[in-house]
């Protein structure tokens, strides 16, 4: 069941990242993703960065040909959608640490909004290569989260990887849970840091996706399929998967080291 809709809004979030908003009625939860079809081009997995109501959104960072193509999409253009697919974040934590790198903030923001709305406190460790690339810095601030940033080039906040910020926060404050999304090597480090403090981690993982319905095995992740068993996995699951942070598979199913 595929739906083809016209994009109604395009928001430039960072120099390399754009949010598209579109009418899409199916109910969705924070953590879930859609398959976004760019007619004439590829169909790629995208987390829903806006899950509420009928006007959903995705926030896309330019990585390769198709995601760059997404950045050229304007209001009025057709896109294809199917989903939402996958599981969701558990929204129970009262004191939540979010560690986001790259486009990872896209999948984390809707859940953070829910936690704050439910009376929880959220601290966000937000990393990017440079200050203008810090995704949803303002959105997190506006929802009432505390944002601590890190940039590789020291143009804002902590100079270096966001895991540095996460490490400090975990040392300074008590958290019920850590949510993380970003490069897998980063997530692996976050898992180790949180494990050391005994804080449960939930990581949103990415694997090559084709069917998105647990059929084709493209997204195999140890014994799991990211599309149906994930994309959100718990600390225990992540630790049990030898692939985590070590290798993913390319479109042919070959193992590729990170």
């Amino acid at each position: 069941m595929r739906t083809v809709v016209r994009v109604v809004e395009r928001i430039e979030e960072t120099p390399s990242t754009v949010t598209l908003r579109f009418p899409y009625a199916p109910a969705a939860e924070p953590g879930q993703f859609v398959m976004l079809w760019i007619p004439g081009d590829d169909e790629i997995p995208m987390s829903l960065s806006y899950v509420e109501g009928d006007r959903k959104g995705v926030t896309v960072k330019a990585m390769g040909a198709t995601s760059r193509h997404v950045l050229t999409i304007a209001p009025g253009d057709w896109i294809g959608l199917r989903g939402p697919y996958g599981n969701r974040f558990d929204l129970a934590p009262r004191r939540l640490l979010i560690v986001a790198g790259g486009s990872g903030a896209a999948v984390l923001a809707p859940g953070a909004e829910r936690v704050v709305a439910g009376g929880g406190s959220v601290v966000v460790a937000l990393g990017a290569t440079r200050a203008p690339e810090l995704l949803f810095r303002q959105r997190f601030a506006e929802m009432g989260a505390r944002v601590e940033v890190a940039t590789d080039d020291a143009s804002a906040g902590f100079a270096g990887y966001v895991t540095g910020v996460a490490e400090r926060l975990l040392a300074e404050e008590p958290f019920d849970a850590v949510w993380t999304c970003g490069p897998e090597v980063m997530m692996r480090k976050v898992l180790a840091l949180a494990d050391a403090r005994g804080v449960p981690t939930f990581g949103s993982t990415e694997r090559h996706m084709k069917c998105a319905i647990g059929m084709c095995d493209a997204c195999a992740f140890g014994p799991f399929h990211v599309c149906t068993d994930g994309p959100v996995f718990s600390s225990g699951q992540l630790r049990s998967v030898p692939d985590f942070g070590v290798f993913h598979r390319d479109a042919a199913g070959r193992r590729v080291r990170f």
Partner: protein
Amino acid sequence: MAELGVELAGVRLRNPFLLASGIWGESGASLAGAYRAGAAGVITKSIGAAPREGFPNPTIESYGSWGMLNAMGLPNPGIDDYPKEVEIALASGAPVIGSVFAGSAEEFGRLAERMAALGVVALELNLSCPHAEGFGTEVGGTPPEVERIVREVVDRVRIPVIAKITPNTTDAPALALAAERGGAAAVSAINTVRALAVDVRLRRPVLAHGLGGLSGPAVKPVGLACVWQIFERVRIPIVGVGGISTGEDALEYVMAGARALEVGTAVAVEGAGAFGRLARELSALLDELGIARLADAVGVAHAAR
């Protein structure tokens, strides 16, 4: 409790349900998972001589509960990278059937040898993918082609060879007979049915490749017709596949002539739990009907005619 175990071409199966090729078969862990969940055996993704990315997305389109359209384009890591996946699958104890595809009889033979060397219990030859140029039905769509490919493979391996037949033909039994003549130990039917979807808003086919193959409940009647017709004309055992999602579907196939079964779409839809459910449903149905051993039901519907 009815006996669900069957023997297929010398391979003992604890129940008739095999994981169909192309569902979960890219990684060893997924194959092992299917076996642990109750599959009697698992068929690998069709593996080729070289890695293949397959077609770009969209590669699938769902019709809700009754069917699924796909044109994956035979993505696979290639035989060089595949041994470690088979190793993981075998470590679970699963009987693994290695599926291969190739563009010529000679290439089939070479690939089959390499796959056989990995310790699989049987081979399945994909002569029936309906949408990948230069493979599948394009090389195995006529009886002489089927016979030549099967013979080449049979001559080069010592394990049973199963020829997977296309439903996109006027005469499925003729293809099965050709496989039999070539020395196949069994035939499996069916692969997906050639199909297409168009998006009217975008004025284009939905799948990037255009043509694809239909699977799921809607193709059960088509698969049953193929198995039925093949049973009337060939002696080697038949593996039924296409749209099996209940124990009753399974028994329909068996009574039409299938000795073992493959399950694809239903496993993707429901997850690995489908295997346990299918076995329970089939067992309960056999008990209800007073059939002591599944094997006794093979082809019985032909007697009524």
